[in-house]
């Protein structure tokens, strides 16, 4: 389907959903830039669908400032170069006040300057710490926990589960050094020794000597901070060396796919962590009902929150511009107003002149000055006979 026909289709859908009273008013055009192809193509289309669900719901209830939402959708192809072209089109041709959806950190890093230069607001799921430190002048928020939130949460889990000596084995990456620092900051005061850490070369086919070095420190938990290919090799080498202690890693480093491929003996008991949607919140229940997905994941939840926050902020500001979004967004997310869990409920409360606080499906959605979330829940799974069992969400 070409972009043009998809857009006209969306336009038609928006128009048909809009109440008759809205039919004459200009639609509120919001930009969506998710990966529909490339490495992010598993998450991008589902994020788009979650946003379309919220838009339809808002339009059925009368739109924002009396205008129906129309999503202008582009594909970032999980590719910075394609993403920048698409972002320019959204900004210069469609003149959207906001772009929602960049996924890969490299893509967000490339698109963010296009946004802040044109005073367009950007919402993203990219996790690299460096992103919120870009000079974005407030035109960016991310709902994904940054490095510090992730490592701190992992360390607290490790403390809770009684490990005494942790060894950190990492690949060479931008998050390597900060992760060691954030882990140590929580583990050491809690009486858990960081017995050592080493950075390995990701291109080696065997990590026997590295594993020997780690095991000399006699850890009872090995924290594996790498990507799927190297973590698979390290897990095998740990098994071969006769190590039977705990192993902890990110969910993207031991995926369902690699769990199915690796011998069960190798993965037995490995704990994985991933950012979790706020599964107990009313916002999450509403998102599940709206999307028709039994258990929406963190990405669907975050996309739900972006469009809800954007709709509410525009209604609160009385104006649909990137600068209004920048200046007003925290009056929706960081306020002490009455708690709302969906865009429709929030819009109704705003109409009655109430101050509101949007609580999201992905978490509380409270943002720091540089656009990071302050809190997030994490989901911890454990591999058992080749499948993941949920340990806890905390």
């Amino acid at each position, binding site marked *: 389907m070409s972009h043009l026909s998809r857009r006209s289709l969306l336009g038609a859908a928006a128009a048909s959903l809009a109440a008759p009273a809205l039919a004459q008013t200009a639609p509120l055009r919001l930009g969506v830039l998710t990966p529909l192809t490339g490495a992010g193509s598993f998450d991008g289309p589902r994020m788009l669908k979650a946003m379309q669900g919220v838009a339809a719901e808002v339009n059925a209830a009368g739109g924002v400032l009396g205008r129906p939402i129309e999503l202008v959708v582009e594909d970032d192809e999980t590719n910075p170069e394609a993403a920048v072209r698409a972002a320019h089109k959204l900004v210069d041709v469609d003149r959207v006040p906001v772009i929602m959806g960049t996924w890969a950190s490299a893509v967000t890093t490339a698109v963010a300057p296009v946004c802040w230069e044109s005073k367009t607001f950007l919402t993203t799921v990219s996790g690299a710490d460096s992103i919120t430190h870009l000079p974005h002048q407030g035109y960016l928020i991310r709902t994904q926990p940054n490095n510090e939130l992730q490592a701190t949460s992992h360390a607290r889990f490790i403390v809770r589960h009684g490990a005494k000596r942790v060894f950190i084995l990492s690949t*060479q990456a931008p998050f390597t050094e900060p992760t060691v620092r954030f882990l140590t900051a929580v583990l050491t005061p809690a009486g858990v020794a960081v017995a050592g850490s*080493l950075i390995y*070369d990701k291109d*080696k086919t065997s990590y026997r*000597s590295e594993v020997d070095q780690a095991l000399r420190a006699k850890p009872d938990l090995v924290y594996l901070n790498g990507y799927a*290919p190297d973590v698979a090799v390290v897990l095998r080498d740990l098994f071969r060396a006769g190590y039977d202690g705990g192993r902890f890693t990110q969910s993207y480093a031991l995926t369902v796919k690699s769990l199915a491929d690796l*011998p069960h003996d190798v993965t037995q008991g490995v704990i994985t962590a991933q950012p979790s949607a706020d599964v107990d919140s009313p916002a999450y229940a509403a998102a599940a009902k709206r999307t028709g997905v039994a258990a929406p994941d963190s990405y669907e939840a975050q996309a739900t929150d972006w469009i809800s926050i954007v709709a509410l902020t525009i209604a609160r500001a009385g104006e649909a511009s990137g600068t209004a979004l920048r200046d007003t967004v925290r009056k929706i997310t960081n306020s002490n107003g009455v708690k709302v869990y969906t865009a429709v409920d929030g819009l109704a409360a705003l109409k009655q002149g109430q101050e509101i606080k949007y609580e999201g499906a992905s978490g509380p959605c409270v943002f720091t000055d540089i656009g990071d979330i302050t809190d997030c829940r994490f989901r911890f799974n454990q591999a058992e006979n080749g499948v993941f069992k949920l340990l806890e969400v905390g």
Partner: protein
Amino acid sequence: MGFADVAQLVLNGIMAGAILTAPAIGFTAIYAVLRFPNFAVASHMTVGAFAGYVVNADLHWPLLPSALVAFIVAGLVGVVSDAVALRPLRPAGLITATIASVALTIALENLVRLAFGNSLRDYDLPLERDWRFGGLRVGPQQLRDLAISAAAVLALFGVLGFTRMGKAMRAVADNPVLASLRGIDTQRIGHVVNFTAMGMAGLGGMLLGLDTSIDPLTGFRAILAVFAAAVLGGLGSIPGAVLGALAIGVAEELSQLALPPDYRSVVGFLAILLVLSFRPSGILGVRR
């Protein structure tokens, strides 16, 4: 770090080096006969690894026949790809042929990617705990890899030393003009060398994957070490390639006594730099 730890590093290095031996021989053999560094050895390692994978994991063939398939398929791909992509360009000179080999390796690697995707694949072999003796540990699979590699190298030495074909190959390596004047079909020898060399590369690729996992980048990741081994041993010298591979394997492991593990790859570069600076002919190479 005590004596046992250093001994363990040396042992790990010998095992790693033994796996590099076969592709290093392939690289150096092509250099000896065809007179250019053929970096397509990288993708032929990958092709061999995947060929062995298909018969081992999908058709459940045992290890040895799978290794033979890895050798034959990589060898055949080597003959065809050379005839199509490299031979027409060789008259244009060494640099042209070398660049073409890099292009060829990228093309073949992406063909493998097209067919199998990017995900990691494992051979259908039982994973065993290591054996321990006297404070050292070694994996049963490592010993099998060592045996296969050693058998392949000995067989190759046998062919080169005691058969007419081997003599012809050495003659072409020594002096192609003289060899062709003596009635040796140099083009046919070129095919045989390509088949054998890329077969060795394919076998090495599979051995590399047996201990870990394979993906389309399997060969590419190892090519620096293979190149370093061939240069260190002396480009064109097959016994040199064996020595070079073992030396690079051990040096990479021992470097951990002085360097952080993520600097392990520096050993290969350093070896190339030192050899080219001080003894360009390598350990056993002959200056041409």
